[in-house]
Each structure stands twice: as structure tokens, then as C-alpha cells.
């Protein structure tokens, strides 16, 4: 019996202690379908996939989400319904409260930047990456990082030119994937960084890059940035080049929001299927063919200029419950299941080109030629050519009107008004000064760290 007991005792002790040797292994659990940071970036495919995720993140921001905020701050939309959780209502009413702001978009732009900086921090250690690929990847990274910082500074800061030296606060610039907290840089510094990144991208990007950014996309982006900086001579340098390219031009279609690659497009977001739709925030908020009450509806003031029966673009809009107390308007521009989102396109380049000519005392005929190409497409048989004797000021107004219609609900018009305000024009946006605090999106509460300056409270009331 004693022997038996001893054996049992020994077995028990072995069982109790036996796990000790494999203890580390038993507790070393790793997420099975996730990759550990230290093992994630090893091959050229890894770094390419990380870059692709930057486009993915960027596309999920520019699928209408960000453009809609720009439109809500401006004058083209009517007041959205005041329903629970409606950030649109807050933004429209130009709320400046930290707890209700576009924190998702703020985070995601910086998350996109984090991914890009992770590429920059790791690309040197990737074995087997060709020099050509490395240059291209770096170029695309700089292109996207520039754009992310630019979108942030457009929404969260007063425009370029708001102060003479542009020392007014911009947004944090992040050039490293680390945990160091950065405070807001000046708007001037942010624009300098954006342009530096674009210039770097232009030196690295190829002429052809499939659906991804090529050198012309970087140039088109630079033109847009410079245009918002009111640097019209520099804009013209780029637009002259881009409009002289043989493989880009006006498309016949009034609607650029299609699947495919019309010659208009310098850069667009690609939707490959219903399940990979990069136009969701446009479709979900404007579409009215299957939704009697879309969240975003054109304003009466916009409809006044849009409902010209001779203009074929008026077909994009409809009056519902006409004449009744519950009359409202809808925009049909995005009434589709799936489409690509054009972000840099020829029409925009042509309009910048034309307007910059009027700003710089250039040849007005060239400006008329550009804007009339757009007008002819819109008016078709009802087109009447612009009088060549038109003054520069009148022509500028005409070009701007075309811009408001052509780029309607693409997130452009409000920034144009702020640009003009910063350039000295006296204007209001929905009866409020163009630079009232509510024209800036407020920073999320999480930014409340020592030294971080929040945007002014008080909205635009």
C-alpha cells in the first residue's frame, strides 16, 4: 500500500509541476489571424500591401464623408434633419463642441498618415525591393501624406492667407510613426510640408501607375493646393502643362461619378463592386430614387442657380412636394449603386486654369475657351458662346458660377469661398462671416493635452 501511495504521490507532484517547463509556451499566445508588428513587414509584398491600405483608408474618408462636411459648412445644402446622433446637423449649424465633432475622420486621416510613416520607417529594411518599386512607393506615400495633411488643415484651421504670415494654428504635422504627441503647427508650416511632400512625390512617381497616383495626379493635387493658397501664377504653370497632355481631356458625360476611367480623371477612388464601394457616403446621404427622405438636400439658394432648364445639369435636381409647405429638393447626381469617386479631374483643372488667368491678367480668350468647353457640354444645343469682350471680373464670376455647378456637392465650393475671403473679398457664408469660428471643425476632446490650442468656441451665431 505504501508503494502504491508513493507512486500516486509522485504522479500527482509530476502533474502539478510538470507544466512548468512548457509554461512560457502555454502563455505565449499570439493573435492567430493578426501579424505581430515585428513580423509584419519583411517582403516587398508586405510593404506594397501596407501602401495599398493607405489608399484604402484614404478612400474610406473621401467616399463623401469629408466632402459632405465641406458642403454642410457652406451654402449649397439645406438644414439636415435634427435627428438623434446627427453630426450633420451639428456641422451644418457650425457647432464647435469637442464632444460632437468629426473625430472619426480626424483619427482616420492621422491613421492613414501613421501607415505612410510606417512605410517610411521600415522601407529601408525590406529585402528584395527593387529600386524602382521603392521610389514609386515613397512617391505614393508622400502624395497621400500631403493630401491627408491638406484635408486636415482645410477642415480644422482657418484658410491659408487668414493671417498675413500664416502663423495662425493649423494641425499637428506627423512625420514619424511614434507615440510622441505633436502640437498644432502653423497653417504656413502645414502648407509648406504639404508642398514639400507633393514635390517629393512628383520627383518619384511614374507617368503610368494604373489606378494609383502617378506624377500627373501629384501635379493636379499641387494645382489644387496652390489654388487654395491663391498662388495663381504657380497654378497656371501646372494647369498649362496638364491641359496640354494628350491623354487627358473633357469627357462628354455630364457626370464624372461613374465606374470606369474617363479621360477626365487624374485620380479617382476605385469601387470594384457593390461590396467594395468607395462612394458610400455620397450614395447613402444624397440618393433619393430609393429613399423618400435623404439626409442631405440641396438648399433653395443653390436650386435657384441650378434649375436653369437650358442647362442639362438641372436634370441632377428635383423639387419634391412642389408648392407645399413640406417642399424640398433632392440631388440625383449620386443615384447609383456603385461608382468611382473622381477627386482630381480635368474640369476642375480647367476651371482653376481659367480663374487663375483672370486673376493674373492673362489671355482671357484662353480662359473663355476653357470655361466654354464646360458650358457647351452643359447647355448643348442651347449653348451661347461667351462674349469675347467680357471683362475679367465678369468672366471670373462666370467661371465661379460654373465651378459651383460643376463641382456641386463634391466638397469644393465652401473652400473656394473661404479662399476668396482670405484673399480679401468681403463675403458671408449663410449670413455669417466666412471666418467665423463655426466654419472650422472642432478638435476631438482627446486632443486636450498641455499646450494644444483648441479652435475657438461659439459657432457662427
Amino acid at each position: 500500500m505504501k508503494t502504491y501511495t508513493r507512486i500516486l504521490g509522485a504522479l500527482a507532484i509530476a502533474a502539478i509541476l510538470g507544466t512548468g517547463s512548457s509554461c512560457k509556451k502555454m502563455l505565449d499566445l499570439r493573435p492567430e489571424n493578426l501579424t505581430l508588428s515585428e513580423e509584419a513587414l519583411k517582403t516587398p509584398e508586405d510593404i506594397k500591401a501596407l501602401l495599398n491600405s493607405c489608399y484604402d483608408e484614404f478612400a474610406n474618408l473621401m467616399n463623401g464623408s469629408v466632402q459632405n462636411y465641406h458642403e454642410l459648412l457652406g451654402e449649397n445644402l439645406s438644414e439636415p434633419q435634427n435627428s438623434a446622433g446627427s453630426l450633420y446637423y451639428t456641422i451644418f449649424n457650425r457647432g464647435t463642441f469637442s464632444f460632437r465633432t468629426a473625430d472619426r475622420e480626424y483619427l482616420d486621416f492621422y491613421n492613414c498618415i501613421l501607415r505612410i510613416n510606417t512605410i517610411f520607417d521600415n522601407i529601408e529594411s525590406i529585402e528584395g525591393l527593387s529600386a524602382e518599386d521603392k521610389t514609386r512607393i515613397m512617391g505614393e506615400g508622400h502624395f497621400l501624406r500631403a493630401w491627408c495633411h491638406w484635408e486636415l488643415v482645410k477642415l480644422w484651421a482657418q484658410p491659408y492667407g487668414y493671417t498675413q504670415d500664416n502663423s495662425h494654428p493649423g494641425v499637428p504635422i506627423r512625420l514619424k510613426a511614434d507615440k510622441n504627441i505633436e502640437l498644432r503647427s502653423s497653417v504656413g508650416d502645414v502648407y509648406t510640408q504639404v508642398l514639400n511632400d507633393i514635390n517629393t512625390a512628383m520627383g518619384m512617381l511614374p507617368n503610368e501607375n494604373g489606378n494609383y497616383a502617378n506624377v500627373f495626379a501629384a501635379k493636379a493635387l499641387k494645382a489644387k493646393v496652390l489654388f487654395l493658397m491663391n498662388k495663381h501664377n504657380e497654378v497656371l504653370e501646372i494647369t498649362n502643362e496638364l491641359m496640354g497632355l494628350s491623354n487627358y481631356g473633357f469627357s462628354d458625360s455630364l457626370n464624372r461619378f461613374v465606374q470606369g476611367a474617363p479621360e477626365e480623371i487624374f485620380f479617382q477612388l476605385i469601387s470594384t463592386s457593390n461590396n467594395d464601394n468607395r462612394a458610400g457616403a455620397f450614395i447613402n446621404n444624397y440618393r433619393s430614387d430609393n429613399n423618400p427622405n435623404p439626409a442631405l438636400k440641396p438648399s433653395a439658394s443653390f436650386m435657384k442657380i441650378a434649375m436653369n432648364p437650358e442647362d442639362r445639369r438641372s436634370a441632377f435636381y428635383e423639387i419634391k412636394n412642389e408648392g407645399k409647405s413640406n417642399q424640398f429638393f433632392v440631388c440625383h447626381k449620386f443615384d447609383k449603386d456603385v461608382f468611382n469617386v473622381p477627386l482630381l479631374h480635368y474640369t476642375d483643372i480647367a476651371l482653376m486654369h481659367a480663374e487663375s488667368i483672370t486673376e493674373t491678367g492673362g489671355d482671357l480668350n484662353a480662359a473663355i475657351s476653357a470655361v466654354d468647353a464646360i458650358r457647351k457640354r452643359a447647355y448643348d444645343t442651347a449653348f451661347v458662346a461667351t462674349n469675347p469682350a467680357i471683362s475679367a471680373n465678369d468672366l471670373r464670376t462666370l467661371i465661379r458660377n460654373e465651378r459651383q455647378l460643376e463641382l456641386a456637392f463634391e466638397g469644393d465650393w465652401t473652400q473656394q469661398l473661404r479662399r476668396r475671403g482670405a484673399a480679401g473679398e468681403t463675403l458671408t457664408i449663410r449670413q455669417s462671416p466666412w471666418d467665423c469660428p463655426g466654419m472650422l471643425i472642432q478638435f476631438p476632446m482627446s486632443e486636450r493635452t498641455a499646450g494644444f490650442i483648441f479652435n475657438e468656441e461659439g459657432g457662427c451665431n
Partner: protein
Amino acid sequence: MIICDYMKRFLKPIFTIFALYACSVSAQNAILKGVVKSNSASGISGADVKVSNKVSKINASVSTDAKGFFVLELAPGNYEVEIRKSEFETVSEVISLVANETLEKSFVLQPEAEDIGEVVIVGYGTSRRKDLTGSVSSLKGKEVLDMPAPSFEAALQGKAAGVQITMGSGVAGSGSLVRVRGVASISAAGDPLYIVDGIPISQDYFINGNNGGFNNNPLATINPNDIESIEILKDAAATAIYGSRGSNGVILITTKRAKKSGLKFEFTSRVGTSQPTFKPQMLNSTQFLQLYQEAWENDGGVGLAPLPNNISWDDARKTNTNWIDETMGTGFKQLYSLGTTYRKGTFGAYVGLTWEDNGSFVIGSNYDRQSARVNIDWEPIKNLNITASTSISKGVNTRVDGAWSGGFGAAMSTALPIYPIYDTSGKFWNSGNGGWNPVAIRNLKDWRTTEYRSINNLKASYRVNDKLSLTAFGAIDYMDFFEDIYEPQAMINTNHAGIAKRSPRQTFNYNYNFVGNYQVLDNRIHSLSAMVGMEFQRSNLTSRYIEVADANQALYKGESFGDASTRVERENPAEAFAFLSYFTRWNYKYMGKYIMEFTMRADGSSRFGPNNAFGYFPAVSGAWLLSEEEFMRDLWGKTNSLKLRASYGRTGNTPNQNYAWRGTFTPAQNSYGYNGNPSIFPTRLPNPDLKWETSDVLDLSIEGGVFKNRLTWEIAYYNKTTNGVILDLAVPRSLGFSSYYDNVGAVNNSGIEFSFSSTNIRTENFSWKTQFNIARNYNKILDIGVYTQDAVSGGTNDTRVVVGEPIGTNYIVRFSHVDKETGRPVYLDKDGKETLTWTNEDRVSVGSVLPKAVGGFTNTFTYKNWNLNFLFVYKIGGNIYNSSGKRQNGVVTDWNMTTDYYNHWRKPGDEAKYPKLSLQTEQYGLPPDPYQYNTTLFLEDGSYLRLRNISLSYRLPKSWFGKHVDNAQLTFTGVNLLTFTNYTGGDPEIARDFENPADRNMSSNITYLTAPQEKSYNLTLNLTF
């Protein structure tokens, strides 16, 4: 005397039979014929009779028959007879049997006066309550069943001091919020650890997020009918043996096993109803239009106000929909349960089958559970005990939207009385997901969650000798969870028939342990026992997501779709965690009255990096049975008890996230990619320094019993300081990520508990028992490192972490009054000066999230076959923040308002509760949107007294059924029939949906379109045969 005569007449024929039987047995043996009676002289059936002779090692056992008789044939000699029966005190007596003679003997059992001698389950073993050095509350299975709630933890409310339970809302399948001695965690889970028959079960309240305004209840598939007992371990002496997971208390659930010899059946059938305890009083169409127009005109509007959703005034006037009635009604419940026990010799089995269907007053909400359990005990060879348990249950929760997500929540908010259910063509009006037509969404949306759960264990214990025993234990807790949602074209923007979504999640959780017990010393003076053991637990979670954009029906009905290419299936990242633990417990008793205990657990967890993988959790405790001292016996009497207890120890907690310390990337296979190409991206930055949250706990208590322990009482004090509190910090988003886990700060919980149990009257036919408990918890944040109060928030609620305040203090702007002349709301700035402008900077800690006291009291009256039991629960003090109030009764928006809003300012000189009506936020001094502007106007006292449970039962006379039925009982039970409160916002007992564990810890006093609790009437039939 009459009874005695009756008994004699009655017993005679039976004894004759016994005598005949005795003649047929061996001539050398002796016969023991006995009858077991209560002090009212009625026979006690089912009492366990054990006889033993320590010299000859002869043991025998038998159960009494329906009339209390038993007979045993034994070799001659002296025997100790021990008779046990629940609810009676155990009797032990030595008898002497002579060869060829029959001893007739009568045993009288006294009703159990108190429970100090009972055996309670503790971690990895049992203990006599008398010998406990830790704080343990126990509940019998019967007490669990007395509360007809689908989830067992609801029955703990009001029963144990210091255990605060907010019963789940009336939505079917809802779970309770359980807090043992306050909450010590902020971002880590604050719920106690639940252990079912030895395995820490998976208890993820957020397996489904708060989808539809509802958290999953991980305890819902545990069948209350299977529960034998529940032990709640409260202090470090009791919980440190569970080490890293003991900080918030441990709840041990033990399921039923066969105890009595023979085959027994217990059948239970219950039917009941479900109604809301409170119906929100919303405005009707006329009232709404009147107040809406008043607001419009106050703002300078001319003519008729444009109405929400472009509704015309003509249409609005013609419509008057009572959305509350459309979403809340009466639900029906039914339960059928059959329990079978069988014991023969060393083999015993329990088989339980239950089907339960819980309809809710929330129309369309239902929880259906089917469960089966088999528990087996067997001693195949001497000293080797094998127990095996297996259970399988299926819970089907038919869901509707609630709270912020719609349904009854919409009925209290966005579904206006001017909106019709149907349009003129008879189709649902505005059936989109905007929450304007909850009836349409309920009817169109097919939504259910299905949970299969199986908990199994196998245990082998071998008693090597009198001193050493060894146990090997293994268990598996498997859960298969599916959520199915189908939204047809009529409610979403699609050109397809409808979209079907399915989220399957599997949890495979297993553990095994080896435990050795050794009695080092055992003599009249010293007793020293030791236990050592190791345990390993691992839990794996896998999940997938399937979406069919062109589906004809929900996927649980089968895959039926138009365009097959619209079917997308993806595997989510699998997750796992593991604990490897070594533990020991040493218990020393001196003279049976001084007890010292030391426990230690070393816990290793996969949730921490190699530097911090192991944590050490010791506890030391002592008890002094004062009443065993001679001087106390002289002073106090032999039959009274008095005991002092003290303990000090350390327990811990881990983050909920399994890989919070690791930096990770989402690989290509888990991402849609872009432009048809793969993507990978960083998902979390590493924090290799993350470590345990540790609580140092002091517990002091005194307990005793007087009047022969008819009155027992306990007073306890505890003080728990938690350091290295795990916070899910909101970091600046410009870092590119929003949060990471870190150990920051400290929290203190202290409190005092008092409870007593009293048998007030005990006569032959009538008894009256009272149980009472009360507890107060103090909670204070001591430190939050370098972070501001906004670094951690309770979801979207304005509850914060503020040093010097309890966890989740309301951090809002103070409302002062309504200006009599202008009707504008007047606030107080942070310095207490009146202001007309609400600003973020004027938020301060206000009110009290902690009640002054919580507890319950139970009274039980028994008269002959009748039993009346009622339980009151109460909360004294503590605020409720009615977060939806600011939208219902604030700036007028597209929400409906409550009738209370009539108490608003109309003209100069008015003294009103609410300001002048307005559609404009600036009239209230608010920024543009009216959603987040919390003020103390909606902070109210949440005190209540509630008749949680009243039950009246009648034991049907046996003569009605004949000898085949042992017991038949009919019980009427009413739940939540009466509530006394001054709270105006609805039901003062709030169990709302939470956004995450931090929200669950911080915002339990917030209500936001929360469903009230359920009021129910139930009739139960219980048959034992």
C-alpha cells in the same frame, strides 16, 4: 395524544411487515426499524440515514419512505446513526443492536435554526461555515428558483449583503449588473468571476457589442433549475485563491447531484405574464403639435411651424399614434422542467430537462431556452470518486431594436405621434432605418441571436489514505453564438430583395487542474491541512461574418439568394487567452477555536508580456470562535455563537483585451484591400509594460447567533485599494490611433455590511422568518496619473474619472433655475455664479453615483401547508441621470416629449420646472446641437423601495394524489408588483445597454431610452414523485 394514537395505529401494520421481512433475513443479524419525525410528529420522507461502526467498519445507508420509516439489517454491535435532511438539524445517536433482535427507534428532527454548521463551497474545496475565515454568502437552489427570472443572477438581489444587483431590463434575454463590494476596475471588467462546477465560464457581455441597444447576457444559457447552490466570495481570504481574477468577487455555481437513494422525479411547470413596471407618458398628437407650435412661435415663427419629416399639418392632425402601446404590451412566459435523480449504492445520477419560453412586454422580444443536464457520481472502487457533468442548452433570442437603436426607444423619442404606422396605400409609412416607424422595422426586420452552450466536466478524486487525497479535474465550456439579421428592401436602400447578415462566434474554453489535499496534523489540539494545486485555462474565440446583399431571407432559415456573387464571407481574427496558475492553501486550527489560513496563487496570463506574465496573490486570514471559549460559554451560553474574522490579501484583474500589450497588423486575408489588391495595416501599437491591476483588501467582521442561534447576524467592514488600474486611455488622435491600455492610477473601495437572519416565531404549525441586509460602499479614485478627467469616459455619457470622486461621477454643468422673467434656463459656472451660457468649461462633478445604502429584506411565513414569502429590495440615495430627458424635455427637436414637459415656463412670472419652449439651442444658451448638453436638470434622486418578489405557495394534501406523489405544490409569484420612488424618469432600477466595459463600470446610473423592468405574475406547479 391524538397524534400519538394515530401514529401507533398507522405504524402497526408497517412494523408488522418489517417484522415479517426480518424473519426472512439471516438469523444472526439484528434489525433496526426506525421512523424519522418532525417535532410536529409528522413523518419526514427522504431523510438520509447513515449507520456506521468504526471498529468493524460496517457502513450502511438508507432513505426514509414517504411516511418517514426505514429498516436496516445489520450485524450486531454498536452503531452511530446519523440522520440528515435539508432544513432540519442533523441528528446523531449511538445505538446498540443485539443478534436476532429488532430495535424499534424513533428519531425527531428539529427545524434548522441557523446555518453556521452548513458546508459551503469555497475555491477548490469545501468548508464548514463555522470554520470559514473569509467572507462567503450562500444561496440554495430553491432560493434561486423562487425568483422567476430567466437568468439566475437576478435571484441574488437583496439576498447577500454587499452584493448589489440591478436586475436586467424587461427586454427578453437581458442580463443583470452584478457588483460585489463596489467596482474596483475602470476599463477592465468590473463583474465578478463566475465559476460553474469548477470552470471559469466565458462571460463576454460585449460579444455582440451593444447592437440594437442591448448587451448579450453570457449567463442566460445557465439553467436556474439545475442550480444546487451559489456561493459569493467577497473578500481576499475567499477570492485570492482565484488570484488574478478575484478583484471583483467570485461567484461559484454548483449544479444538482443525486443524493437520495432510489429514483425520484421533480416536475416544475410555470406560466406567467410580463408587463412593464412603468409606461413612459409621451405626448399625443394634439399635445405634440401644441407644444411644437408654441416653441415655434416663441422663436418668432409666424404661421404654422414646419413639422419634422416634412409632415403636413393636415396629415399630422389626422394622425395620433401611441407608439408606446405599439411597442409595449403583455408578454407570456412558460417553463417546463423535469429533474430526475437516481442513486443506488455508489452510483448516482441527476438528469434535468428544461424548456422555457420568455415573452417580454417589449413586443417582438422573446427568449427561448432549452437545456439538458446529466450529472453522474460514481465510486467504482473504494476511495475513488468519479463525477461527470454535461449540459447543453440552446437559447434563442428574438430581437427587436431598443433604446437608442429604435423600437420602444424610438417610441420614447423619434417616433412622433403625428407619424402614422401605415400610409394611405396600406403600406408601412417611412419604413427606413430612421427610427420613425418602429412598428415597420419590427415587422420587416428578422433578427435573432442563437446561442448553443455546453458545459462539461470530469473529476476523479482518490483518497489515498486518511490524510492524503488527490483530485484531477478537467472541464470544457463551449459556446456557439450566431446573430442573424435580415433587412428587406422595404427598409433599406437597395435594389436587391434584402440584405442578410450573420455573425457566428465560437468560444472554446477549457481548464484542468490537479489538487492535492494533505492533513498534516489532526489531533484534539492542532489541526493543519494543506492544499496545493495547479490549473491551466485556455479560451479560444473564433468568429466570422457573412453578408449576402441579395438575400431572400435570414440566413438561419437557409441560404436563399438572388445574385450569388453578393455573398461575402470573412473570417475575423481568432483570439485566445490562457492562465497558468499554481496555488496553495494552508489551514491551521488550534483547539477548534482559533483558525488561521494562508492562501497563495501565482497566476500567469497570456494577456501580459514576458516581463509581467506572472502575478502573485497571497492572503492571510484568521478567525476566532469566541463562543467556544469557556469564559464566553459561561457568559454567552453554549448554544449561542460568536466569531471574529479578519483577513488581508491581494487579488487582481486583467484587461478584457487579449493582446492589449502586443503590437499587431491586420494581415491581407482579413482586409478587403483596395482596387482588388491586398492590404495590411497596423492595428495596435505595442505596450510591453502592461501589467496586472492589483487590489489589496482588508476585511474585518464579527458574526454571531443568539437564542440558540435563532437570530444570527454579521457585521463586516472592508477596505480595498486597487493600484495599477487598467485604463483604456483616450490618447490624442493625431497619433493615428485612438486608445491604448495602460496601468494608471488607483481606486479605493471601502464599506460596511450588516445582515441578520431571524426565526421570529416557530410553533408546530406556524413559523415566521426574517432576513435583512444592508450595505454601504464608498468608492474613490485616488489617482489617474498625468491624465485629465476626460482621458476615460463612460461611453457617450458624461461620466468621468475625477480624483477624489467615485468612478463614473457625473461631470456636467449645473442647472440653477428657470428665469422667471424670460423663461431662459440659468446655469451655474464652475465657480457657482449664475450664467445664461452653457460651456464645456463649467462642467463639475455633481450628485452622487453611489447610493447611501442598498439591501433587501425577506419575510417568510409558514402555516401548515401554506407558505408566504416576500422580498423587498431598496436603494437609499444615489442619483440617476436621465440622459434622454435633455432631448425629450429640452430644446424641442424631432423627438417626442413627455407629459411632464407641460410644467414649462409660459409667461413672465411663471415658476416652472422647465424653461420656455424653443426650437433653437441658442435660446437655451447652448451650442448648436442639443444632444450632449447635460445639466443637472435631469439628475434625480434614484432611491426606491421595491417589492421584488412575493410568493404564496400551497402544498397540496398528499391524500389528493396517493402514495406515488411525495410532494405537490402550487405557487403564485409576483415580481416587481410595487415600487416606491420619487424618480420621475421611469423605472428607478436601470439596467441599460453599455458601450464597453468602461461604460458598464462608469455609467450604471445613466438611463437613455432604457426599457423599464418587468412586472410579472406567475403560477408554478411543482411535483415530486
